[in-house]
C-alpha cells in the first residue's frame, strides 16, 4: 500500500452526491445505496463513520458524476481510460471530493464485461478520499487498474493490504460489524407526549410467524409491517430490534383509523415513501405525512379495489401493483398508469398469488413475500429462482430453521408454470 501523507483529523465525515449520472441505467436510489455501501466498507475497518447530509451543508466528501473538463486538474477522457478520481484528505474545499466519469457505463452486479462496476470503483476512490495512494499488492482494491466487480456490496470486506494501509492512517480497530452504510436511516422521532409509550407488556406479534402485511426497502433498510407494528432490518441485515416499533409512533400523521398497511414502497424518483391501506394511499417525506390520503385509482386500479403488493422495479423504473392474480403497471415519470393492464400475475413465473408484498433487495433482486416464505427473482428476471420458496425467518429475521419451528407453514400455491389451464378456483381458495 502507499499513503498520501494526509489524513482526516475527525472521525465522522459527511458526504453528499451533488450530481448523478445523466445516462446511467442505475437509478439515483441505487447509486446512493451503492456509494453508501462503499463508504461502509471503510467504516467497518476503522473508527470512521460517514453521514450523508443534504445539499445545504458543506460536506467533507462531495460526489459528482462529471465528464471531460470539470474544473479540476484531472479532465476525463470519455468511455474507457480514466474512470474516476478522488482528492486526498485536507483543508482545501476539494479535499475528499470524488468524481466519476459520467461517460462510463456504470453497472451494478453485471456479470459480463460490459460496463464498469460502480461499487468496486467507489470503494477504490473512497480509499483515496481517506488518504490511501495506489498499491501494487496483487489483490488490493487500491490497484490503479480496474479489476472488474468485487462481489456483493453487502458482504464485501477490504483485502488485508488495504486494511493495513487504513490502520496506518486511522489506527487499528477490530472489524466493526455494525458499521452500517452511511445512508442516514429513518430514525424514530422524539416520542410525542400524546401517545403513551408501548409498555414492554403490550402484546406484540412474533416476527417469526411471518404473514406480514407489507414489506418495503426504504433507503437500504427493509421495513416489515404487521398490523399496527413494523420491524426494521439495517442494510447489514441486522434487526434494529426484535421488538417491533409502533406504526403511528413513527409515521407521523398517519391517520389513527389506519390499522393495517397492505403495501408499501419507496418511490425512486424522489425518495418519497408510499403506504397503502384499503382503497387509499399516503405519501411520506422522511417520516412526515405529505398531504391528505389519495385514492388508489390514481395508480390505475378499478374503484373499490385494494392492493396486495406494490414495488418499483429498477429494471425499467416502473411501479407494479398486484391484486390477487393480476397486476397493473404505473409509469412514475409520466405519472400515469400504463395502458394494457391488468395482466396475469403468471407472467412472473413461480410467483405466489396475492403476495403479502414484494420488494427489491439492496443487491437488486426481487423478493415476493407470502405467509412464512419468500420467492427470489434475480435482478431483471421474471422467473423465480429454482431454490424458491425459502422460509423468511432464518434468512431475514434471525428465526429458528423451519423444521424446528412449528410456526412455519408449508408454502402457498404459486402461479403455475406459464401454460394454459382450465383450473377453476373457488372464491375461498
Amino acid at each position, binding site marked *: 500500500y*502507499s499513503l498520501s501523507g494526509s489524513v482526516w483529523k475527525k472521525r465522522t465525515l459527511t458526504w453528499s452526491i451533488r450530481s448523478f449520472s445523466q445516462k446511467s441505467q442505475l437509478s439515483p436510489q441505487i447509486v446512493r445505496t451503492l456509494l453508501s455501501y462503499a463508504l461502509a466498507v471503510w467504516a467497518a475497518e476503522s473508527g470512521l463513520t460517514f453521514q450523508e447530509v443534504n445539499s445545504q451543508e458543506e460536506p467533507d466528501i462531495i460526489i459528482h458524476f462529471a465528464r471531460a473538463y470539470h474544473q479540476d486538474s484531472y479532465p476525463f477522457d470519455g468511455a474507457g*481510460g*480514466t474512470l474516476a478520481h478522488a482528492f486526498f484528505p485536507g483543508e482545501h474545499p476539494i479535499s475528499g471530493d470524488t468524481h466519476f466519469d459520467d461517460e462510463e457505463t456504470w453497472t451494478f452486479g453485471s456479470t459480463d464485461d460490459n460496463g464498469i462496476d460502480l461499487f468496486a470503483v467507489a470503494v477504490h476512490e473512497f480509499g483515496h478520499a481517506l488518504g490511501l495512494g495506489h498499491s*501494487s499488492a496483487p489483490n488490493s482494491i487500491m490497484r490503479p487498474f480496474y479489476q472488474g466487480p468485487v462481489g456483493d456490496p453487502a458482504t464485501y470486506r477490504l483485502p488485508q493490504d488495504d486494511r493495513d494501509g487504513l490502520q496506518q492512517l486511522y489506527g487499528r480497530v477490530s472489524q466493526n460489524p455494525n458499521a452500517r452504510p452511511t445512508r442516514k436511516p429513518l430514525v424514530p422521532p422524539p416520542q410525542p407526549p400524546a401517545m403513551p409509550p408501548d409498555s414492554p407488556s403490550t402484546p406484540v406479534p412474533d416476527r417469526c410467524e411471518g404473514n406480514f402485511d407489507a414489506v418495503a426497502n426504504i433507503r437500504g433498510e427493509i421495513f416489515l409491517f404487521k398490523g399496527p407494528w413494523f420491524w426494521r432490518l439495517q442494510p447489514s441485515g441486522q434487526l434494529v430490534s426484535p421488538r417491533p416499533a409502533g406504526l403511528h409512533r413513527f409515521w407521523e400523521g398517519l391517520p389513527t383509523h389506519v390499522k393495517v398497511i397492505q403495501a408499501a414502497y419507496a418511490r425512486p424518483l424522489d425518495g418519497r415513501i408510499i403506504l397503502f391501506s384499503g382503497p387509499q394511499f399516503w405519501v411520506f417525506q422522511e417520516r412526515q405525512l405529505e398531504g391528505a390520503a389519495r385514492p388508489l385509482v390514481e395508480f390505475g386500479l378499478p374503484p373499490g379495489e385494494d392492493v396486495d403488493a406494490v414495488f418499483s422495479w429498477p429494471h425499467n423504473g416502473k411501479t407494479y401493483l398486484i391484486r390477487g392474480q393480476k397486476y397493473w403497471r404505473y409509469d412514475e415519470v409520466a405519472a400515469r398508469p400504463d395502458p394494457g393492464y391488468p395482466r396475469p400475475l403468471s407472467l412472473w413465473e413461480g410467483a405466489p398469488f396475492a403476495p403479502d408484498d414484494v420488494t427489491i433487495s439492496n443487491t437488486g433482486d426481487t423478493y415476493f413475500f407470502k405467509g412464512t416464505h419468500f420467492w427470489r427473482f434475480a435482478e431483471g428476471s421474471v422467473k423465480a429462482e429454482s431454490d424458491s420458496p425459502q422460509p423468511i425467518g432464518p434468512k431475514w429475521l434471525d428465526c429458528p430453521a423451519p423444521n424446528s419451528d412449528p410456526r412455519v407453514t408449508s408454502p402457498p400455491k404459486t402461479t403455475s408454470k406459464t401454460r394454459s389451464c382450465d383450473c377453476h378456483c373457488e372464491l375461498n381458495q
Partner: protein
Amino acid sequence: AQNPDAKVVSMGVEWLTRYGYLPPADPVHAQMQSLEKLQDAIKVMQRFAGLPETGQMDPMTIKTMRKPRCSLPDVLGAAGLVRRRRR
C-alpha cells in the same frame, strides 16, 4: 521491445510521467533521462500492473497503459519518489 515505434515510446513516456513514474519534464533544469531511469520506471509500472518486470516497453505493457484505471498517479511525491511502506 525491439525498436518500438517512436509514437509508442512518446506515448509511453507521457503516460509514465502522468502517473508519477517519471518526474515531470523540466525545460529549465533539463535533466538527463537515462535509458536506465526509463527502464526502472517501466519496471515499477509493471509491478503495479502485475506484469513481468522486464523494464521494456513491450506490447503487453503498452496494452496495459490503455486499460481503464483511476486518474490519480500511482507514484506519489514530487520527484516521483515512492513513499511506500515495506512490510
